[in-house]
């Protein structure tokens, strides 16, 4: 299986008050065909920015360097017109807020059939039939009626189903889901995750799942990359990361989760806060919050070290 997406040395800088600040630094990862990669991290660690940069949806003034190769093509070099034919067609996206990501003035059917007409050259009539089929496939009852309803007539979970239908309309190769369940009730969350897994499997779609919810990662992902303050600190297969976390940050994240089994102990928070863009620590960015920080951590950031097969970590503790 080949890689559908390869991100290499991605750097993203924002301009604030006439100066550029690095929001994402030296991020590299890849997603294989049919694979689900989780991108995990706290708010503001650069995961959403990374996903938007893949779609080239970041607004200037922003500087992006590195490579984002989709099927071997560097998306950062594509002219806007070609990029438009990829968006929604080969790579599509699901957003966090189902309540606001549908246009309130257009009917559900119009919004779904739009990308079919745009990318697949379907006629209005064909698109309508395909839309009803799509609504059915995402588990929406009475699709023939819902198709003519407006977003405000649907609940949050239903709207997220509609968003999935829109995203999957053109059977994309890659689906980027930016916190797709954060705004939903827990019971609905599970349904939506199941649905995403089902439609992705049916269409052999790879998923880049952006989340801060490790539970979601455990349920959905094949591999996971943990981001902290704009860098990937640990990456590997989900099982290994959960069973054998190596980076102190990953360990902290897992320790701060409540466990269903085992002895009841106090949850351990990670002390301190995520550093701000304007005030990045030197060396390893986690060092100020790390209990095992050494002198070298505060001077230089570590490189990746291989822990096990395909499991790598960016930490001095693992340097030979």
């Amino acid at each position, binding site marked *: 299986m080949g890689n559908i997406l390869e991100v290499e040395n991605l750097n993203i800088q924002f301009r604030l008050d006439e100066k550029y600040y690095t929001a994402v630094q030296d991020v590299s990862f890849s997603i294989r065909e049919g694979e689900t990669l989780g991108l995990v991290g706290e708010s503001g660690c650069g995961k959403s920015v990374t996903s938007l940069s893949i779609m080239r949806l970041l607004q200037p003034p922003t500087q992006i360097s590195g490579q984002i190769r989709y099927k071997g093509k560097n998306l950062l070099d594509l002219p806007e017109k070609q990029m438009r*034919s*990829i*968006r929604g067609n080969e790579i599509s996206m699901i957003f966090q807020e189902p309540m*606001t990501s549908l246009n309130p003035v257009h009917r559900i059917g119009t919004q779904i059939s739009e990308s079919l007409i745009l990318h697949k050259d379907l006629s209005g009539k064909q698109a309508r039939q395909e839309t009803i089929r799509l609504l059915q496939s995402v588990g929406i009852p009475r699709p023939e009626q819902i198709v003519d309803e407006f977003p405000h007539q649907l609940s949050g979970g239903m709207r997220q189903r509609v968003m999935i239908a*829109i995203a999957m309309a053109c059977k994309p190769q890659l689906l980027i889901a930016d916190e797709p369940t954060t705004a939903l009730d827990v019971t609905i969350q599970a349904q939506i995750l199941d649905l995403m897994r089902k439609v992705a499997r049916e269409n052999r779609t790879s998923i880049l799942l952006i989340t801060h919810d490790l539970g979601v990662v455990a349920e959905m992902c094949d591999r996971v990359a943990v981001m902290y303050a704009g860098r990937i600190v640990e990456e590997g297969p989900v099982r290994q990361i959960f069973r054998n976390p190596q980076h102190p940050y990953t360990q902290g994240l897992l320790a701060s989760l409540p466990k269903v089994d085992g002895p009841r102990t106090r949850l351990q928070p990670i002390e301190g806060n995520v550093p701000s863009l304007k005030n990045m620590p030197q060396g390893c960015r986690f060092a100020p919050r790390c209990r095992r920080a050494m002198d070298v951590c505060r001077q230089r950031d570590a490189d990746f070290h291989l822990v096990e097969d395909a499991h790598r970590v960016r930490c001095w503790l693992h340097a030979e």
Partner: protein
Amino acid sequence: MAAMQFETPPAPAAAAPPAKPFTKKFWKSVRDFPMLYLGALIIVLLILAAVLAPVISPHNPTTQFSDGLTESGIPVGPSAKFPLGADNLGRDILSRVLYGAQVSLLVGVISTVINLVLGVLVGTVAGYFGGWVDNVLMRVTDIILAFPLLLFAMALVAVLGPSLWNVLFAIGVLGWGTMARVVRGQVLAVKEFEYVQAERALGASNTRIMFRVILPNIIGPVIVLSTLNVGQNILVEAGLSFLGIGIQPPTPSWGNMIEAGMQTYQVAPWTLWFPGLALVIAVLGFNLLGDGLRDILDPRNTQH
């Protein structure tokens, strides 16, 4: 004790309320927004007057009647033959007011359509793209707004020559400033919504996002402003005609009728009153309708 006897609560939302008959809904809406309906009524009457002018006018608006003037040359007052009196040349004022509605509506509506197209175009592009595009377009808008519309239109009509179409064109290409500003503001707010980003993620082009995604969401304020704008433009047309560079006599326009009325006001005040009254009522109608629409379209107003 009593508190323990819970009655089955009335199920209000469960069953769909029986559909109210249309007439009942209509009268409730009239009670809620009386000014809106008054404005609408005035405009409907105005349109009827303009369209039916050839049928309902008692006389030809340009015919000068010898019995329209007294022997000393003073216009005769309201009478059976001239319901609203005659003007300084012995023409029937009622007929001229009715025909004047044609001019006012024509100029008011068409120039507003031109305002609308230009204002929405400039405002949307400026608000959507931002940056230097916004800067350039908004400075042009500022310049347009810096001149009094009447004065600006006077200059343009003076160059083009006075005619109905030139007046209409001048008001149309000069009066879009407010529209552009309002639209830009709305676009700035709407373009930050997530569904705009989502649309972009679907591969929609900028043009599509501007006019298919954002524009339908700001249509409310645009409609309100356009309605108010019609009244405004009718006034400007009257002003131009009053100053003699708008609609040229003998074609009746409320503006040039008022101007003519000024000369005979001392001896025959109705020559001034009736065209003036028509103008006030027409503009009032559009203003009431515009304000009423604003109330109805205001999302904070939950009455409907």
